[in-house]
């Protein structure tokens, strides 16, 4: 019984959170999950990337989060978000930023490059700060690209190589988190067209394809 209760309420907000954040989390939890059987054109995807002090979600620190929605296959400047985690003045300010990110993501499928990296950082932070088990529907471009663009590469490779393969301008200097997000968003726009062409025409199918490709590659 106790175990079951713990399982059922493991997402419950930690007691230390202020009421407004608790309330916001409750309302987020009660939001319906985005229907995933719609065509890509009708699905709002959120492309997300982070800046961090290093590559390890366990030991390094998150500095910033850049997210941009792709709706009707279009990137809209009005539907973007940037969290300056690094310069959050206090714990509550950070918590509110994280809640704002949850509200922005609004249970849309999240798109990134290497879920293990991006998702790892976010998961740790959401768990530590808000007690939230952050398990969104991920689309991992790192694994999906070689699966859908086998004509360009059949193996997982660094993002810069994909950018070059697509003939996109990679810019001279190092990309910021938002620049990287926008680059991923453009690649994702191209990927949606390719996916449609291969019959992967809903968000659900795309997420399945993403999972399958990463599973196959990791185990075989």
């Amino acid at each position: 019984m106790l175990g079951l209760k713990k399982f059922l309420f493991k997402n419950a907000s930690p007691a230390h959170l202020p009421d407004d954040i608790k309330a916001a989390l409750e309302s987020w939890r009660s939001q319906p999950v985005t229907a995933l059987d719609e065509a890509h054109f009708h699905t709002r995807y959120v492309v997300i990337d982070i800046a961090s002090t290093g590559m390890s979600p366990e030991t390094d620190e998150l500095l910033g989060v850049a997210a941009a929605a792709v709706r009707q296959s279009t990137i809209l400047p009005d539907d973007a978000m940037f969290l300056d985690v690094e310069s959050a003045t206090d714990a509550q300010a950070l918590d509110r930023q994280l809640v704002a990110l949850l509200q922005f993501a609004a249970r849309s499928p999240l798109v990134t490059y290497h879920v293990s990296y991006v998702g790892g950082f976010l998961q740790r932070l959401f768990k530590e700060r808000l007690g939230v088990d952050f398990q969104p529907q991920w689309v991992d471009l790192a694994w999906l690209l070689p699966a859908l663009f086998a004509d360009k590469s059949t193996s997982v490779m660094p993002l810069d190589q994909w950018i070059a393969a697509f003939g996109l301008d990679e810019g001279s200097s190092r990309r910021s988190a938002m620049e990287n997000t926008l680059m991923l968003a453009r690649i994702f726009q191209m990927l949606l067209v390719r996916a449609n062409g291969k019959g992967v025409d809903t968000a659900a199918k795309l997420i399945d394809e993403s999972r399958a490709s990463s599973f196959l590659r990791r185990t075989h």
Partner: protein
Amino acid sequence: MIMSQQVRPEQQTAAAIAEVEAESRKEGRRRVAGNTIAFLRNHAPFNKMAADALQHFAERAQIAFYPAGSEIVGPDSGNVRFFYLIESGKVQARQAGEVTVTEYSILSLGAGECFPIGAVTAGRPSTNIYLAIEDTFCYQLPAEDFMILMATSPEFNLFCTQYIASLLDQSRRQLQLQFAQKASEQQTLNSPLIGIGSRSPVTVTPDTPLRKALETMSEAGIGSLVIAGEDGRPVGIFTRSDLLDRVVLAELPLTAPVSQAMSPAPFSLEEHATAYDAMLAMASQGIRHVMVTDAEGRLTGVVSERDLFALQRVGLRQIRQSIDSAHNVEALQQSAGDVRQLAFNMLAQGVGAEQLTQFISALNDALTRRVIQLNLENHSFEGIDWAWLAFGSEGRDEQTFSTDQDNGIVFECADKAALDALRQRFLAFALDVNKDLDRCGFPLCKGNIMASNPQWCLTLDEWKEQFSSWIRVPQPEALLNATIFFDFRPLFGKVELTEAMRRHLLIQTQSNPMFLRAMAHNALDVEPPLGKLRDFLTDLEPDHPGKIDLKKYGSRIFVDVARIYALAAGVHNTNSVQRLRIASQRLSIKTEEINAVLEGLDFIQLLRLQHQYLEGEPGRQGDNLIDPEKLNELDRRILKESFRQARKIQTRLKLDYQVN
């Protein structure tokens, strides 16, 4: 008030979350925009635009991907919703439909290029199909934001305006092409005989007595006579030279049938043979006439050597010479026809409306001067200073093909007692001139604004007083008169008199600001026929539904505004284009702005000329009523832009003279 101070803590912090979210979203938008601006900075015209205009573009522009082979926007997508800027890839612009309205049929666009500027400006569907021919990313700015940028960024506005101006240029070339085709149809030796020469030749039957045949020729004033049988087939031709050889010298009695004197079996060609065939036949067979017959061999016309020469283009110099050496009105009538023909040729050769109307005016001036000179042989004004004045469109050098007379006389009369008698002499002279001008194709003025009207045959002092009274009391009628009489120009006689009139006019108007304001008020009565929902308002003239009066709702707006600015800036010219150019310099209106306005006026004038020449029936005065539905898409677009320019300059006038 008290309620709002008692906010519960969680409400306050809920507002804090909303604030954080709004702040983070704002920062997100700012950073997306920063990414876009980095691209814009590398491309014209964005690299010249102010920071806030760029920021607006970047914060509103969406990024869309179009795979190779997909259509981005086309005529079927409805009114254009976005202004597109290519970030990467290649886009092909292709004319929709079969008719090419611009000189290119396929155009390739690359990174940094924009489309469809004309359509998004006009808020209508694109005429081109824009197809991604490579994988293409575009920034797409919603149409309403495009309009905001047009209004707030002068650099962006200039870029788009110039682009549309280049469309104007293309359309003009298209128009000229149409004329060239019609001109060559009419003029080359490839045209069929059916359209050349006499279409209903005078004929007699072979048994007609010579006397009767000669009488027929004399009555009809012709030099040759076709003899045709009962079935209408030509059997012979009798000419004046035959009279000498075959009648007089052969001592043939005048009672003999004409068949005995005619040249039998005249050379015939079918109607569909060309002028070239006729010319060849004349040259090879030494004949001067070719019978034109239908398929059954029945006579339908005669082509003479002279008709074929008339096909050759008439030249400016020959016309001037023939006008200046004409000894009677009949010769001038011929020249008047040549002026029309030459104007048409020039239109075909690509002369713009401004030059063309001035050119028509120049030849018409020469013609009028000659009519005056010929009449001075019967009326002498030795020792009297006087001048013949042209008013209205003639006074402005803006005559189109169908312009009626607007003229007057100014003269000096020192002896008051002799004034009435002198005026009567001028009126008699003017009446003769007015009648002769009418015979040369300048119809009498319906409003009787002619030198033969005592109202407009005045001494210098009377003209000055007339001008002053209009300016002092700007009643509606005075204002109407001002729009006609203040555009005066001397055609013949003592130019100093008209200069004195002009100086008087400018001094008077500049010391009466109320008058110019009343003129401005009057000029704003008629607005360009732009619809809020439809492109054009075509129901303004109840008698002509579906049509737009290009003079009343088009060129007149420009002309009225030009007159006011010219009077305000002390410009002596009467031509609207010159008035606007010079006045804009004096009033420091931007050159680009005034050029766009002049382009608009030029286009409307060109459309009027085209309409009057291509659609006017021969011998009938052409009108200014066009049906916008019958214009091609590009012309319609440019006409709309031209009307917008009319509205623009009206708005300026409204501001300058504070007319509401």
